[in-house]
């Protein structure tokens, strides 16, 4: 057992850091609910940062580290699915990479647009199609991602069958969700910590009031737990570990998001502070794969049997 980053991982994260630097702050007035950058997306893809897990020596743990780091940015980037799920299918399928469960296709999908790969995860098989303009509709949502809805039944539309097990896809989906949530939780927490340190009320920083300090500290405990569960699940690709990581991520999002906005007071209900760029992404992740109940049941099945 050794949880120390390898030299390769440190080098990759340093490179991600350099690339991400110009995108570290958000032009919030123009942003709306989601902030996107095609330029950043292109730079990441061209730099090979989303292909890390294709290299067996680097593996999925390194990919999860990249996903976690990118989620700290205020920009919504289609990194998690591409970096962690796409390796099951090969590098030829175009991005963005969108996953949908058969039977849950009425919900808006993150990053769905014409040209996206839609992976349809059924109970017994996995198939895909490349979405056309006629098959998708862009949605104005309250979530912190660009989203679209499918105008077709994905099970009928997905004519390409894949020799991949639905359980393997779901395991990686859960790892991707947890890794992204870990970064979002940490970034949201950082953002709130900065605000309550600067904001003075009653003659002193808000951060000096224990009512806030302890709840923020508990949020740190949660964010740290999600981080380590996500990286562990990415390294082991164990179904139970992945379900527990995703469960802890969704539960921690539930436990912290409203607190984070609460601590910003009135600023917490504006679009002038970037907090929503992280928390409203967490809200989108909260419903995936059946939400907390879905992850919990999957974890119980994997760990204790049916």
């Amino acid at each position, binding site marked *: *057992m*050794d*949880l*120390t*980053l*390898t030299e390769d*991982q440190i080098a990759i994260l340093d490179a991600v850091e350099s690339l991400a630097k110009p995108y570290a702050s958000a032009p919030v007035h123009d942003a709306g609910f989601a902030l996107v950058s095609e330029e950043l997306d292109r730079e990441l893809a061209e730099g090979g940062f989303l292909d890390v897990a294709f290299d067996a020596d680097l593996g999925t*743990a390194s990919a999860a580290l990249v996903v976690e780091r990118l989620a700290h940015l205020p920009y919504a980037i289609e990194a998690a699915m591409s970096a962690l799920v796409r390796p099951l299918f090969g590098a030829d399928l175009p991005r963005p990479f969108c996953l949908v469960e058969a039977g849950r296709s009425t919900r808006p999908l993150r990053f769905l647009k014409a040209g996206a790969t839609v992976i349809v995860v059924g109970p017994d098989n996995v198939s895909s199609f490349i979405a056309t303009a006629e098959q998708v509709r862009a949605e104005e949502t309250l979530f912190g991602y660009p989203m679209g809805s499918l105008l077709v039944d994905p099970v009928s539309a997905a004519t390409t069958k894949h020799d991949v097990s639905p359980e393997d896809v779901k395991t990686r989906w859960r790892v991707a969700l947890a890794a992204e949530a870990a970064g979002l939780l940490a970034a949201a*927490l950082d953002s709130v*910590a900065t605000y*309550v*340190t600067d904001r003075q009320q009653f003659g*002193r*920083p808000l*951060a*000096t*009031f*224990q009512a806030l*300090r*302890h709840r*923020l*500290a*508990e949020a*740190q*405990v*949660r964010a*740290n*737990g*999600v981080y*380590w*569960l996500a*990286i*562990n699940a990415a*390294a*082991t690709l164990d179904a139970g*570990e992945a*379900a*527990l*990581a995703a*469960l*802890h991520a969704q*539960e921690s999002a539930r436990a912290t998001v409203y607190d984070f906005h609460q601590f910003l007071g009135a600023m917490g209900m504006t679009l002038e502070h970037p907090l929503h760029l992280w928390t409203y992404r967490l809200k989108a992740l909260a419903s995936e794969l059946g939400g*907390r*109940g879905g*992850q*919990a*049941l999957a*974890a*119980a*099945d994997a*760990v*204790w049997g049916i």
Partner: protein
Amino acid sequence: MNFEWTKEEAAFRQRLRDFLAATLPEDWERFSQHGPASPALTDYARSFCGKLAEEGLLTPHWPKEIGGGGLDPWHQTILAEEMWIAGEPRGGQYMNVNWIGPTLIRYGSPEQQARYLPPIAEGRALWCQGFSEPGAGSDLASLRTRAVLEGDAYHVTGQKIWTSYAGLADTCFLVCRTSDDRKKGISILLVPMDTPGITVRQIPSLIGEGDIHEVFFDDVVVPATARLGEEGEAWSIIAYSLTNERLGIPRYALAEAALDRAVAILKEQGDFSGEAIRIEAAHALALCRASRMASYAIVSRRCRGEAIGPESASARFATVMAERRVAEFIVEYLPEALADAHPYLKMHHQRGIVAGIAAGAAEIQLNIIATDVLKLPREPR
């Protein structure tokens, strides 16, 4: 990064399990309901720790030059996990090997080391830690037990409270005031518990017989040679001790073992098929695993020779969350465990309430996280 145990680490864990299986008595699970500080378990621990010592398993993480095995903090962690899962058959002696011994190795005089280390390493010693006082719990620096140097001896007067193991301990690691300076006026004395003037009174507790006590010091005469380190050095000595102990007991390991046991019983009874119960169990397990991983991140740091850092407070709090959720699950779905039906689960429940209270209250851990991890400005005092 490697999230798998090495073959050697796995073999070490298996060796411990084999030893426990071969050594613990048949009725151990019922027997271990006696608190770790009870006369019965303290007595048993002397023979158990003696056998551990013979196998080189009592102090495998101590330096080789003083008779330890020189193994790294992962082995210390595996040892602590296996012992705690088993109900801690070392009783109060776990404290000796975890931090009292290492602190004496670092700060003790040659005479103190010669006197105290061999009994610890042979499994014959029992210590108590004289820290908390009626007016100084989480605010330890407010302590008032006073040691006045007269000639070549200290005269100690004052009171300690909630002191684990004091009823049967041989020696007290006593934190006391030698001057009025809030932190620099605190010193440590190593005090034999049979010294005249010491009175111990047991406090009835939720965690088993004989566990916590009041200890009264009435003009107790202690030779100056019993002082550990310099006068006023207690705060830095305690800080060093905490680098060995701040992670505390690996309660996540027993919590997960208790959860597994409860689930096995519920499955056997046909009571583990509903969605609600399975969801609750999974939530509890997620907290156990999160706590384990947060602790392992700190162990990794120790292996690299780094300071454990304030993040250890985060790992500690994660353990409290796990311990509570597992206990709540068992109370809700297997209440007979708190009667006499399942001694192992009863033992877990009895000891679990300590998690957020002993060895630094959970609220203190949250303060540390707020100030030193999140870098928030301090509260006004």
